[in-house]
């Protein structure tokens, strides 16, 4: 029972980090209709900016540098590249983002090399006792920070003018433009927010029990992809649900791997994709996604 609780809590914490990444996917998809395959490199870039400035600046300022850097990079990508393809087919844009991803990942991997950077975060490897279960402090921090950021984002999405503009543009770009919504800003701000969230996720994917940020960290963003799909690519609520489902599934499948040994090794990494396939079989638009409706 204790093991189960531990795994569950770990899963929820991990899931909230995936939710941060998935939320970025969803924001970009909603506002610009681009499936952003460059999200992994955006995450790695955010992490890289933070770890290289941590020695001179200290942890917290360096984290801010990482967040601001990833946000700026996202905006820059939108401004310099994505904007030129506006109005083109979605698949063209998706392929453009794959190209961006390859370039960025290659350059970042070259800079990072074989090293593993530690964030030297204030949490270290301390464990917290919650009744019978003990979990790393980093997991608690991840859950609290991700939860707070997601809440702030959802409130902004619901109540601010920016949020109204985002939702209007997501529903109908042409009509939003008629209302005077500046679509360029909407799209650039979506990329910035997604970059910032990814940079925060990079932090929590690199702290204890992980050894640190290395050139493979970006690959974890790929696990947030099933999270976004499970929830429905165009639903913010779906991103949260999807993130948690993926986190908990992965944690439980990894924890009970010995009982699941008939499925072979590494089922924990595979489980999220299995869940995704099952969800898509039952609900092709994801749990909270809008089905494509067309009137005849």
């Amino acid at each position, binding site marked *: 029972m204790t093991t189960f609780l531990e795994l569950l809590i770990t899963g929820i914490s991990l899931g909230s980090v995936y939710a941060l990444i998935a939320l970025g996917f969803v924001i970009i998809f909603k506002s610009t209709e681009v499936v952003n395959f460059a999200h992994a490199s955006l995450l790695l870039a955010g992490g890289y900016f933070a770890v290289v400035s941590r020695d001179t600046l200290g942890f917290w300022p360096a984290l801010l540098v990482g967040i601001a850097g990833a946000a700026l990079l996202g905006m820059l990508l939108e401004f310099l590249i994505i904007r030129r393809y506006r*109005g083109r087919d979605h698949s063209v844009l998706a392929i453009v983002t794959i190209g961006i991803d390859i370039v960025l990942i290659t350059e970042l991997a070259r800079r990072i090399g074989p090293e593993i950077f530690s964030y030297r975060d204030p949490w270290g490897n301390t464990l917290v006792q919650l009744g019978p279960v003990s979990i790393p402090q980093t997991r608690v921090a991840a859950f609290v920070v991700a939860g707070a950021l997601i809440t702030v984002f959802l409130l902004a999405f619901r109540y601010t*003018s920016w949020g*109204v*503009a985002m*939702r*209007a543009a997501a*529903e*109908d*770009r*042409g*009509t*939003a*433009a*008629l*209302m*005077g*919504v*500046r679509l360029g800003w909407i799209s650039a701000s979506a990329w910035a927010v997604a970059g910032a969230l990814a940079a925060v996720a990079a932090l929590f994917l690199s702290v204890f029990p992980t050894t640190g940020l290395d050139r493979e960290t970006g690959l974890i963003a790929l696990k947030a992809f099933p999270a976004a799909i499970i929830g429905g690519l165009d639903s913010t609520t779906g991103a949260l649900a999807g993130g948690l489902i993926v986190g908990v599934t992965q944690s439980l499948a990894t924890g009970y791997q010995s009982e699941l040994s008939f499925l072979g090794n590494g089922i924990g990494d595979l489980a999220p994709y299995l869940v995704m396939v099952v969800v898509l079989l039952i609900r092709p638009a994801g749990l909270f996604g*809008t089905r494509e409706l067309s009137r005849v």
Partner: protein
Amino acid sequence: MEAAILRVRGLAAGYGPVHALSSVSLEVPDGAVTAVLGGNGAGKSTLLRAISGTLRFQGGAITGGTIEFAGERLDGRNAARVVAAGVVQVPEGRQVFARMSVADNLRAGALGARHGRRGEQEARERVFGLFPVLAERVHQRAGLLSGGEQQMLAMGRALMARPRLLLLDEPSLGLAPMMAARIADTIREINDQGTAVLLVEQNAALALNLATRAVVLETGTVALSGTAAELAASDEVRRRYLGVGDEDAAADAEAGIRAEHDHSDGHPTLRRWVA
């Protein structure tokens, strides 16, 4: 005649190789309703899109001529700057943000204009005064409103930007006659409050009744223009857009009815299809 608030001169526009407008000139007097009539494909919607700066969403562009609003050039401006100048379009088919609440739709309408919180509040009160039903349904999702209510919301949303000129694209499209008449009354009321209106309509009777001046577009050029009364009296408009005055057609129709009657041996002319 009052001073023109909108001047379109020699406007040409197209979608790639397709020319939709060639050399369209018209003037919209300040504080009045001006109607644009014409059949399908005459270029009415293209004209509005050219003014509101949204042609490029359909892959179109202005290829010649000028659009001047209150002394400022509008052609070449993007949609957001046209709204900021005081020209707002209500799109054809209403296009409310169906998944957002009525309140959020109205907020979206105020995004393009910078009138501050006070200005937004005043605009909202004006909209609720014009359309009390929107105040009642303020928390409902716009997609759940009826067609007429959605048209009201689309118009209210546009008024949130406090435009000096309102562009209306087929406001009566797909509405029951009674609802269309109510929308017409509201357009008159909006105009009485000082907003100039450029009205594109297929329903020529409704449009000519509201407008002081009107132009008729045919295959991308202005075929006729004048006061609404002049156009309503002209044979061509009566025949082609008001559906009256075509003696031959009327005679044919009557003959048809008579023939039907002869065959029916005293049964009523209207019959149901029976399987």
